C-alpha cells in the first residue's frame, strides 16, 4: 500500500507514535494496578469491620474507597484513550489483528461493566444497601478488576506469541479467536501481572502507612492498614521472582531474541553465564563491566546448567530489539523484585514471630525498610513492561507484523504526543495533590 511505504520512510512519526503509546500505557498501568489491588484492600478492611465491629476498619475501608474513586475515574478515562489509540496510532495492526484478539477485549468489556456498576454501588451505597450487599459489591469490584487485567494482558501475550490463525500470503485466515486467547505466553504473563498488581498496591500502601507510623502516628488506623496491606503485598512479592522465572523460560522458548536482549547475551552457547549489570556494546557484540554468574543463564532459562541458550547471533541484525534499554530495564526489575521479596520475608517473619502487627510496628529498622520500598512495585512494573514491549521490537506482532508497517499514515504525530503528554502530566500532578489531601486528613488517634 502506498500509504505504508510513505510512512516507513518517515521515522520520526513512528517514534512519536511509539512514544505516545508507551506514555499512555505507562500512565494507565498505574491506575489499572490500583484498580486491581485497592478493591482487595477495601474488601478485607470492610470484612474485618463486619467480623470485629472495630470502627477503625470501617474508617479504613471508607478512606481507601475515596482514593479508589479518584483513581478509578482516571483509570477509566485513560483506558478509553488506549482503546481509541489502538486505531488512532496503529490502524495497520487493528486491521490485521482486530478480529483475532478481539475476544479478550470483548470479555474485558463485561468485566469493566460489572466493575463500574458495583463500584457505583460500593462508593455511593453505604446507606442504601445492606452490609452484606455492600461487601458483595466490593468483592465483585475486586474480582472484575483482576479479570480486566487478565483479559487485556492475554491480548498482549498474543502479540508476543501469536496463535489462532493461519497466514496465507500476508493475510490471516482460518481465524480461531478462542485459540488465540490460549496462546503460549498467556499464562506466564497474566500470572506475573496479577502478582505484580498485588505487590505494587500492597507494598505501596504498606509503605505509606509505615511512613506515618515512623512519623510518630501509631493509631489503630495505621496499624490495621499496615497489617492488611502486608497481607496482600508481601506474599505476592515473595512469589513474584518464581513467577518471573516462568516468564523467562517462556521467553527463552518462544521469543529467543527478547531473552537474549534482556540478558545482553550476544553469542549462542552452552552453559551460558548470567549477567548482572553491565553495559551491552551492540557494535562489538559484547557486554562490558557485568558480573558474570557462570552457567547462570542456562540454569535459569532451561533449569539445566549445560543447556544451549540462543544468542542475538541467531537473529538477523535488523530484527534485534534495542538491547541496552531492554537489558537495563530487566536488571532494574530484578533488583527491585529481589529487594521487595527480601523485605517481605523479613516483615512476615517478624509478624509471625511476634504474633501481632505490633511486632512490626515496634521494629523501626523494618518500618524504614518498608518505607524504603514504597515506590518500588510501581517502578518494577514500568520496568517490566519496558522489557516486554521494547523487547518485542521491531515487531508489533512477534514474527508476523512489524511496528513500522502498522503505524498510521497521518503525519505530524509529534503534536498529539506532546498534547497527551502534557495532559497526563497535569492529571498526574492533580491526582498526587488530591491523594495527599486524603492522606493528610487521616485520623491521628
Amino acid at each position, binding site marked *: 500500500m502506498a500509504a505504508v511505504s510513505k510512512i516507513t520512510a518517515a521515522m520520526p512519526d513512528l517514534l512519536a507514535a511509539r512514544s505516545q503509546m508507551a506514555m499512555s500505557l505507562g500512565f494507565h498501568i498505574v491506575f489499572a494496578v490500583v484498580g486491581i489491588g485497592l478493591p482487595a484492600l477495601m474488601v478485607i478492611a470492610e470484612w474485618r469491620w463486619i467480623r470485629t465491629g472495630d470502627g477503625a476498619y470501617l474508617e479504613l475501608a471508607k478512606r481507601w474507597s475515596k482514593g479508589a474513586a479518584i483513581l478509578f475515574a482516571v483509570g477509566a478515562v*485513560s483506558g478509553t484513550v488506549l482503546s481509541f489509540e489502538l486505531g488512532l496510532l496503529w490502524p495497520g495492526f487493528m486491521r490485521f489483528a482486530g478480529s483475532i484478539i478481539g475476544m479478550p*477485549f470483548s470479555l474485558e468489556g463485561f468485566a*469493566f461493566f460489572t466493575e463500574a456498576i458495583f463500584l457505583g454501588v460500593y462508593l455511593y451505597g453505604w446507606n442504601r444497601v445492606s452490609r452484606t450487599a455492600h461487601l458483595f459489591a466490593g468483592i465483585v469490584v475486586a474480582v472484575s478488576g483482576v479479570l480486566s487485567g487478565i483479559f487485556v494482558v492475554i491480548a498482549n501475550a498474543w502479540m508476543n506469541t501469536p496463535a489462532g490463525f493461519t497466514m496465507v500470503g500476508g493475510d490471516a485466515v482460518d481465524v480461531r479467536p478462542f485459540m488465540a486467547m490460549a496462546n503460549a505466553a498467556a499464562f506466564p504473563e497474566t500470572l506475573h501481572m496479577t502478582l505484580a498488581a498485588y505487590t505494587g498496591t500492597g507494598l505501596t500502601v504498606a509503605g505509606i502507612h509505615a511512613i506515618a507510623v515512623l512519623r510518630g502516628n501509631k493509631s489503630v488506623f495505621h496499624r490495621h492498614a499496615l497489617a492488611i496491606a502486608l497481607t496482600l503485598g508481601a506474599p505476592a512479592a515473595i512469589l513474584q521472582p518464581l513467577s518471573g522465572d516462568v516468564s523467562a523460560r517462556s521467553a527463552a522458548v518462544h521469543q529467543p531474541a527478547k531473552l537474549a536482549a534482556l540478558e545482553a547475551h550476544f553469542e549462542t552457547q552452552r552453559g551460558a553465564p548470567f549477567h548482572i549489570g553491565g553495559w551491552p556494546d551492540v557494535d562489538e557484540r559484547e557486554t562490558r563491566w557485568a558480573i558474570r554468574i557462570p552457567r547462570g543463564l542456562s540454569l535459569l532459562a532451561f533449569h539445566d546448567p549445560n543447556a544451549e541458550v540462543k544468542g542475538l547471533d541467531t537473529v538477523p541484525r535488523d530484527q534485534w530489539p534495542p538491547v541496552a534499554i531492554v537489558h537495563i530495564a530487566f536488571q532494574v526489575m530484578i533488583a527491585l523484585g529481589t529487594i521487595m521479596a527480601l523485605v517481605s520475608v523479613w516483615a512476615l517473619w517478624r509478624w509471625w514471630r511476634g504474633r501481632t502487627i505490633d511486632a512490626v510496628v515496634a521494629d523501626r529498622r523494618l518500618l524504614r525498610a518498608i518505607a524504603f520500598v514504597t515506590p518500588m512495585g510501581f517502578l518494577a512494573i514500568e520496568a517490566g513492561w519496558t522489557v516486554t514491549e521494547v523487547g518485542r521490537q521491531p515487531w508489533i506482532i512477534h514474527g508476523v507484523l512489524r511496528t513500522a508497517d502498522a503505524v498510521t499514515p497521518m503525519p505530524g504525530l509529534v503534536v498529539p504526543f506532546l498534547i497527551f503528554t502534557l495532559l497526563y502530566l497535569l492529571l498526574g500532578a492533580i491526582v498526587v495533590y488530591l491523594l495527599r489531601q486524603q492522606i493528610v486528613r487521616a485520623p491521628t488517634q
Partner: protein
Amino acid sequence: MSLTLAEVAAWIIVVALNAYVLFGGADFGGGVWDLLASGPRRQQQRDVIAHAIGPIWEANHVWLIVVVVMLFVCFPPAFAAFGTLLHIPLSLMLIGIVLRGSAFVFRSYSYGPRSEQRRWGRTFAISSLITPMVLGMCVGAVVSGHVGTAMTALDSGTASFASIYVRPWISPFSIAVGAMTVALLSFLAATYLTIEAAGDRALQEDFRNRALGAAVTAMALAIVALVLGAGNGVMARLIRPGWATLVIGGSGVAALTSAAALLQRRFQLARVAAGAWVTLILWGWVLAQFPLIIPPDLTINAAAAPDRTLAETMAVLAGGAVVLIPSLWYLLRVFKGSGQPIESPGEPQRN
C-alpha cells in the same frame, strides 16, 4: 429481508450506541446544564446534576467502550479507517472525555478551597459540551460520505493533508450535526433532571424550561442539518419514502409528544418520549445508511471480520448480557428508584 451475520453484528453495535446516547449522552448533557446553570438556584441545579451523575457515569461510559471494541472486533477495516481519517477530532474527543471524567471526580473529592472546586466544575462543564459536539461532527463526516472519499484519496496518495484529515469533518453539515447532538443530549438531560429534582418544585421548573428551550433548538438544528445535507446520498434517503423516512417521521411525533408532555408537566411521559425521540433519530440515520458502514462505498459485509469471529463474539455477548442486564437493573434500582437523596460518605462536605 434476511440478514448476514455481519449485519446482525452491526445492529448490535447500534443498540450499544443507542444505550450510550441515552445514558452516557445524558451525563454529558448534564454537564452542559452545569455550564449554563443560572438564576437564584444555580447551586442547587449543579448539586442535582452532580448527584444524578455521580454513581452511574462510569457504568454509562462503558457503553462507549463496548461500541469501540465491537467495532474493531467485528469491522476491523472500518475501525482502522475511522482511526486514521478522524484522528484529529477523535483525539479532541478523547481529551474531552479525559477532562470531563477526571474533573468531575476531582470536584467531588477535593478538600480544597471553593475556587479550586469551581475551576474543576468549569473544566467538567466545558468538556461536557465539546465532547458530544466533536462526536456529532464525526458522525456528520461519515454520513456525508466525506470520510469515504478521503479514504480513497489517501490510498491514491496524492491528496493534501487538509483534504484528508481536516476538511471531511469540518463542513457546515457536520457542524450542524455536532450542534444538534449537543442540543439533543442537553434536552435529554434536562428532561431526566425534572424527575431527579422532583422534591423541589422551583428547581423542577428550571429544568422544565431548559428542556423546552433545548427541544426547540434541537428541532431547529435538525432541520438545518437536513437542509445542508440534502445533497448527499444518505440524507437524501432520509427524505425519500422508505423505512428511514417512517422512522424519522416517528421521531417527529416523539419530539412533539415530549414537548407537549413537558408543557403539561407530565414528566414521566416526557422522559419516555424524549428517549424515543433521540432513539428514533439514531435509527433513522442508521436505516438510511444501511447497508453501508462508510458511505459512499464500503458495505457492512465487505468490512466484516470472518464469520467465526462474529459468531463467537455474539455468543460471548449473549452470555455477558445474562450477567450485565440484572446488574444494570440493580444499579438503577438502588440509585434511581426511591427518590431519596443519595448520601455518600465518599463525598466530603463542601466547606
